[in-house]
């Protein structure tokens, strides 16, 4: 008994270094941001938040962040659903190859991805030229909101495939056969069985994609050298820029960003509770 409890004490001691590092690099910075978002030249209070929501410029940053995240997550998840469902239906070798490739491209994001897109879809990009000569588009501006949505969608697809591919395990092949024996059409099957069963996984994946896009900084920074107005760019500019440093205001915007993510997660939990498959 004595040696047992001594082992437990020694065990607790082993946790101390982990706790120190975790607090120093994860908890403390977040706490600093949370506290200082409430501090401004005028003293303590909600001044920073009031200023943020009253400023057209910051409101635009929030709006662009939400729009780009929403659309890139939606398009990304639709492509990922179609792709990962079909991946399960093709012969093994093709499946293994493409899913391994999707796995690898999930690391292809940030600065290298922005560069690749400039080469392909920039003003003189190869694809832009092909599409222009074919008369499909007049002009394409990668450095715009549409351009960013396409770029974000690209890095959402591999992540979506990675997360959704296992989810289709929940859908058993014999259910489909039983349903069709009972007279259900393909559409009936998806409407009444397929989609309800997959809903929790789809919602979960969508939330992760949204959070991923909301927090993304490297890609948009590398593409526009920090000239496109989204929240992460605004935050970074106020702590690491050359002009107008304002860590307190940066903290307030950072809290707004974290707030958005928290809100998305809460809505997700609420939808999950209402969804049909909760008893599982």
């Amino acid at each position, binding site marked *: 008994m004595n040696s047992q409890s001594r082992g437990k004490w020694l065990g607790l001691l082993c946790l101390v270094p982990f706790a120190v590092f975790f607090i120093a690099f994860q908890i403390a910075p977040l706490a600093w941001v949370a506290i200082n978002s409430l501090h401004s030249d005028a003293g303590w209070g909600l001044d920073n938040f009031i200023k943020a929501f009253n400023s057209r410029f910051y409101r635009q940053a929030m709006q662009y962040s939400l729009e780009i995240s929403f659309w890139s997550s939606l398009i990304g998840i639709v492509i990922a659903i179609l792709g990962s469902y079909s991946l399960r239906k093709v012969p093994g070798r093709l499946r293994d190859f493409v899913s391994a490739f999707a796995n690898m491209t999930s690391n292809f994001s940030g600065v290298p991805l922005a560069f690749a897109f400039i*080469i392909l879809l920039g003003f003189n990009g190869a694809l832009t030229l092909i599409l222009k000569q074919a008369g499909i588009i007049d002009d394409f501006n990668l450095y715009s909101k549409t351009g960013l949505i396409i770029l974000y969608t690209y890095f959402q*697809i591999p992540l979506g495939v990675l997360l959704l591919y296992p989810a289709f395990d929940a859908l058993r092949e014999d259910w489909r056969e039983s349903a069709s024996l009972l007279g259900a059409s393909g559409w009936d099957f998806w409407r009444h069985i397929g989609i309800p069963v997959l809903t929790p996984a789809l919602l979960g994946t969508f939330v992760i994609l949204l959070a991923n896009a909301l927090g993304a900084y490297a890609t948009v920074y590398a593409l526009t050298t920090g000239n496109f107005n989204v929240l992460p760019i605004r935050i970074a500019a106020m702590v690491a820029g050359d002009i107008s440093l304002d860590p307190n205001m940066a903290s307030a915007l950072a809290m707004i960003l974290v707030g958005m993510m928290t809100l998305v997660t809460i809505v997700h939990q609420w939808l999950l509770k209402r969804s049909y498959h909760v008893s599982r």
Partner: protein
Amino acid sequence: MSRAERGPVGLYHRVVVYILFLILLAPLLGTFVYSIATSWSATILPAGLTYKWYVALWSDPRFLMAFAQSLLVCVGALILSVVLILPLLFVVHYHFPKLDALMNILILLPFAVPPVVSSVGLLQLYGSGPLAMVGTPWILIGCYFTVALPFMYRAITNNLQAINLVDLMDAAQLLGANTFQAAFLVVLPNLRKGLMIALLLSFSFLFGEFVFANLLVGTRYETLQVYLNNMRNSSGHFNSALVISYFLFVLLLTWAANRLNKDKD
């Protein structure tokens, strides 16, 4: 639900998979062609082929320096992670299984708090004073530990559950080993492969980390991603060679992890 289909339905699925593959491949292929082109502007195909951009890249001392510094920071962060996370996991699963629920909440934090948010606090906390680390690789090693944590924790937990930690420990102790011997000589060797895979995959995404590196350290200790960003004004061909070299390196790591994973079963 993973039966291969035949007939027109099978054809449809095949086409979808090929389109998915093409979408994912396009930016890489474009960059690769650009990196071996002599010049490529305002035409659909490049003028000629060359490997001079790769020669230029791999003989640039600044690039080699950035590459080495990236390696150092990532390896340092992974060593720190193993030293901190392995004992934690062992203690949690062997002595305090109830703590696992708390840990699963804590490891969500690095996901839920984007690096750009943490950076605001980190810059103020460690910019000056007794713990001034901003501008040094040390702060990156600490931050990368938090980036790798959720993934490492989950991956090693799955492994621990697969080897049945408590039974293994009891058996070792029954045969006369003390707790340390049992942990190091019995449990650790059983985790070796799973740990290797987790390390390789963590390495591949830490190697691509840009936000912390750029905001907290920048050119004072240039990593590969920061170097890439700073080279934006040099030749696009040169940058493409850089992107492709980076991607091939990451490819090699993930490929090795995949191979190990297959050997495991």
